[in-house]
């Protein structure tokens, strides 16, 4: 989401730059008795002189604008996963590992312990995070998987007591 926001902001900046300059130049042309070269001001003027608040195009545009605003708000206000998480290695500041690295390492550890299609997610805050693992394995493998994940977290110097949640789905059929 951080990268998406950065791209969106760069695009918005570019649009504002171009639109702002266009409006300033076109208005200056009008002020000095000329005609706008790029902006179809006459067409827009005619449309806005006819369009009423109760008309369908205005209502549809308002609904789309409100919907886009709502989606943006939800995307920005929901909790974001941390970009990096702190370890217990190093003093001031403690060494951090990228979240993706931790997720990949947990998935590899789970795969070595026999989990199929492991999918790991790190959530919480950089200084206080938790790990969630989902995958396909038999229930009796759970303890071994948990031990493998915790061993990997120890190897990564995860803070002591980092919560681990494991959700396993049974395989479709037992392989003989």
């Amino acid at each position, binding site marked *: 989401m*951080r990268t998406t*926001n*950065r791209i*969106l*902001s*760069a695009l*918005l*900046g*570019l*649009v*504002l*730059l*171009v*639109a*702002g*300059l266009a*409006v*300033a*130049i076109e208005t200056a042309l009008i*002020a000095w008795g000329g005609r706008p070269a790029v902006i179809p001001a006459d067409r827009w*003027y005619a449309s*806005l*002189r*006819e*369009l*009423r*608040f*109760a*008309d369908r195009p*205005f*209502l549809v*545009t*308002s*609904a789309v*604008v*409100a919907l*886009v*605003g*709502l989606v*943006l*708000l939800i*995307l*920005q206000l929901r909790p974001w996963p941390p970009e*990096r998480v702190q*370890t217990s*290695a*190093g003093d001031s*500041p403690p*060494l*951090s*590992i*990228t979240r*993706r*690295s931790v997720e*990949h*390492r947990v998935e*590899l550890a789970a795969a070595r312990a026999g989990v199929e299609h492991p999918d790991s997610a790190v959530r919480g805050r950089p200084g206080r995070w938790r790990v969630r693992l989902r995958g396909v394995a038999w229930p009796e493998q759970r303890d071994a998987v948990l031990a493998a994940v915790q061993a990997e977290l120890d*190897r*990564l*110097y995860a803070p002591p007591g980092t919560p681990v949640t494991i959700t396993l789905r049974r395989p479709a059929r037992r392989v003989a």
Partner: protein
Amino acid sequence: MNRTLWTVIGLVLLAAGAAGLLVGYGVLSFVDRQQVLLSSDLIAGWNRHKAWWLAITIMGGLLVALLGYLLLRAQFRRRGGAPMADLYLPSSPAPEATEAAQFDEAAPDRADPDRGGIPDRGGTEVASRALHRALQRDLESDQQIRDATVRLSGPPHHPRLLVRLAVTADADVGHLASHVDRAIHRFTTTSGVQPDLSEVVVRIPARAPARVE
């Protein structure tokens, strides 16, 4: 910053869209839903002060363009601010000059060659890039570190330091932390620069580490 910006944009769009719907469906009694968007009153108001409105529109357009430029520039700025300036290390004054100044107050300023003193002995300038490279190479001297990126920003004698490390799959995180500490200690000893370490981020590759059976 971007998150706050897009939250505000989201709020503004939601409010504008909702207001448009309320007006369009006639919920707001003080606005006539059959009214055209560009009413005669608005046009009359524009025509009454046309010169002012044109000037305001031009200024507004330029302001929007400036904001757009600042927003665009902010997206390409690197984290941690501008890199630190080159480091200047002045040489210490000659011992004989200091002693003479202490015991003979009537003597001319010996550091000023125009007044018959000893010429300035100069100093040493260390390029910021050289300091960056020195620390980077020292960090990369460890076999577990494949690539190191350092960023020194702020005052040259006490800069802020950001470190990014791409490490091998079997890297030991505790060992990395102590290697970074030792590298910074060596850097301070050799350059006299005491960085304030603000962040060390490690990226570990996705592939499994080589296991020794």
